[in-house]
């Protein structure tokens, strides 16, 4: 089953583009919400085991992290996380809600702002993909967690986690500020197979684009 979830290089490129379409939708929503230039892009994705995800995030992020979490059901079953370094989260909040707020005000609405931002991004990303599959996707309300990263991927004290994680790097560009973060999707095996189906559909669709154009 695990190997069935493995993606070819072309499939990985296709999935990256799919995610990019999703985050572009999210950026568009953010733009409308905050009325500023917001760009989101996903330069690379990886599919790794839960343990590897722990190591990856541990290597790359030394300090405290902040995560927005939503559980999924419908087209995909699992859990989606938007992760930022804690040090940059306030900056993100400022970028989203505006410079005019005082530091105290910004801090007071940090969690709320993050939850909303996370909701827009994750919803844009996964919702777009569910739409493409013409399936519904139900997402729980966003929750904000603070932690050291590893805990986000090893929920409920599962001693032998063997699930796979779709690990995405995400770049935010808000008013010329670049903020990086991660989107992690813990998906069950049927969801991964669904994802694979979506990827294949996308490839087929793109490859037929220029059939009429050439």
């Amino acid at each position, binding site marked *: 089953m695990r190997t069935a979830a493995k993606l070819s290089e*072309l499939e990985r*490129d*296709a999935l990256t*583009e*799919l995610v*990019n*379409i999703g985050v*572009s*939708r999210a*950026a*568009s929503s953010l*733009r*409308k919400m905050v009325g500023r230039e917001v*760009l*989101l*892009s996903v*330069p690379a994705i990886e599919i790794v085991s839960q343990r*590897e995800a722990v*190591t*990856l995030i*541990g*290597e*790359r*992020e*030394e*300090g405290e992290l902040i995560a927005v979490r939503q559980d999924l059901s419908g087209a995909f079953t699992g859990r989606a996380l938007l992760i930022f370094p804690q*040090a940059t989260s306030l900056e993100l909040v400022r970028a989203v809600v505006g410079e005019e707020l005082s530091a105290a005000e910004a801090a007071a609405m940090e969690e709320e702002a993050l939850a909303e931002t996370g909701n827009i991004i994750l919803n844009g990303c996964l919702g*777009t993909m569910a739409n493409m599959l013409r399936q519904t996707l139900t997402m729980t309300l966003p929750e904000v967690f603070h932690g050291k990263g590893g805990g986000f991927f090893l929920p409920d004290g599962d001693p032998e986690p063997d699930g796979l994680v779709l690990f995405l790097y995400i770049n935010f560009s808000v008013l010329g500020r670049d903020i*990086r973060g991660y989107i992690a999707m813990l998906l069950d095996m049927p969801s991964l197979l669904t994802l694979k189906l979506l990827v294949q559909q*996308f*490839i087929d*669709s*793109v*490859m037929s*684009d*220029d059939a009429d*154009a*050439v």
Partner: protein
Amino acid sequence: MGGSTTFGESEPPAAVEERLRNILSASGGAAAWEWHMGGKRILGDSGFATLYGIAPEEALSGISPGRFFAIIHPQDRDRMRLAMGGMLRGSEVLSKQFRIISPDGTVRWLQARARAHNAQRSGQGPEQSDRFSGVLLDITEQKRLEEQLRIAQTAGGVGTFEHVDGFGTATVSGQFCALLGMHAATDLPVRTINALVCAGDPPLIDLAARPELGLATHAELRIMRADTQEIRWLMRRGEYIRDADTSGVRFSGVIYDITDAKRVESQLRVLNETLELRVEERTRERDRIWRVSQDLLGVSDAHGVWMSINPAWTTLLGWAESEIIGNTSEWLAHEEDREATRLEVARLAAGHKTLKFENRLRRRDGGYCWLSWTAVPEDGMLYSVARDISAEKEAAAALAKTQEQLRQSHKMEAVGQLTGGIAHDFNNLLTGISGSLEMLQARLAQRRLQDADRYIAAAQSASKRAAALTHRLLAFSRRQTLEPKSTDVNRLVASMDELVRRTMGPPVQVEVVTAVGLWTTLVDPNQLENALLNLCINARDAMPDGGRLIIETANRWLEEHAAHQRELPAGPYVTLSVTDNGTGMSPSVAAKAFDPFFTTKPIGQGTGLGLSMIYGFARQSGGQVRIYSEVGLGTTICLYLPRHLGSADTLDDGSSAREAPRLGKGETILVVDDEPEIRVLVAEMLEDLGYAAIEASDGRDALVVLQSTVPIDLLITDVGLTGGLNGRQVADAGRALRPELKVLFMTGYAENAVLSQGHLEPGMHVLTKPFSLDALANRVQLLVNGRPT
């Protein structure tokens, strides 16, 4: 396709060109392009036209997506179609690197960047782009450099990093991550990187550093690899330079693994630190051996001058170290060993090894110590070990002495046997002589002279046999006086032929096989005749019922091996062999055949002296005797005699005068003998023969006569004289006074030393006692008158 004028619907071309130019100038890229989704056209500027090898006007009016993708390298084409597909389906940002195949056929790397343009910024309805635009940058050169850098980093195991002051992350290379045991990444938090550095070691990137620009630093540090937890040594080298983008300070550097070098370095250090200790330890071990060794150990220079010796020298020899050092051991060496010792040191100095060289060194107490040396030369020094073998030497000497005593006792036993045997034979003969003389006396008293001759003859016969017996004894004791002559053995055998055949009798068939061209040999022919006759008689006795007897001569050349077996020097020999086909001998009997008095004959038939006498004769003549025998088949006895280079002398037929005619003409003969009976008897005999005899009872009296002016024609002297001078000395003194003096020695046995090993100077002769009047007359005649009778 390619309808260049069909696009642009609401926009004039000039406006499009204007916009593209702006994009281009803004981005500083090589080519600008714009994708119009609705019309499915891609418009480009002149740079774009150049890339595609089309006219600028055609680029401006746009090309189809199929055309757009056509120049993209096949391996990158699907990827780029996916990326463009993403843009067409809602992606807003594009950033891709890909290859194209230029119209001229070269492959070039391009970087495409694009952003979607929102049709309605005002925001009614869902946002939908109608086009996206961007630049195409030629990054071929950059790619090549990146690739070279990547190869260099991978091959050299060098990881690169860059950190701009104030930032929490550093830009790193794949190799950098690999060296730290981390997943590949392009950016890593500095704290993550530094967290891997072992406590106490300098950080990889020092956030607290406030360095001057241009400062180059390096540090060695240990990290714990993130994947294996292995501790590795890294070298970090870096430079602080001005960052162009931020105008801050950029720390740009490399890391590489130096664990192996460190390990070697540390091993070297440990080795160095322990070297002294180990040398000391080993030196102590060597010292212990040096000190406790019972053998003499020593180091000397190439001349054998001792530089260093161990305490065993003092223990064994009693000399203090200071007395030995600085000298060779020559002053200690036994006089007889000095030369050999000098030669051995020279041999060593020439590069040879010494093994079991033995010499004697003097002890302080004056005694000598036997030493066996092993030594090697090395680097101009001589390293020697000597073992005390005095005890072994003493044991060997004691053994030799015991053996000598044993031999002596064997000899005494043999002498006892001999004396008994001789006493028996002599008593018989004496009985014959004295009986005859008694009978003669009785007949003289009775005046019955007609029987006198018979008794005289009987007495003479008995005394002749007694003389023969003593002669044989002397031959056995190898003290007979040989008068070797150059002899033709063939001629000798021929002269014996008749005698042998008569002795053998009719039942024995005698064959003589003589070699043609037989060499001559130097032997006493009379003794050889005796030997041959003896061998023939033995052979006859071995063939009681008759048989064949073969006498054979031959030339034999004995090679080293054969000669050694026969205890002879290698060289040419004449052989004389006697073969019978009689009863033969068992090996044990053959082995004892040459022992004196060993005989297979019944008591009374022989003294057993025959073969041993032949053996003595052969050995004294420089030859050998060998027996080849098998029981029932027969026996061959072979005499080896050395070849003599010279012609054979005329064989003296040895016949003696039966009468005593007066031979002398008054010549004067000096007779010296301390036995008055013999002296008087000889003098009377000589006077009977017509010579004038002067008697002297010892050497001094004789010298007085010799010193006088009395003419002396011949000196006859006994060899063994009492009174200080022996016969030989008298003769020599006489020769000194009268060089032409002729000398005849009389001797009961030949004292070899006195008579020069049995060989005499010209003009000196020997007469063996007892002798007959005839023999004396013959020899005197020969000497005085120069010819035999």
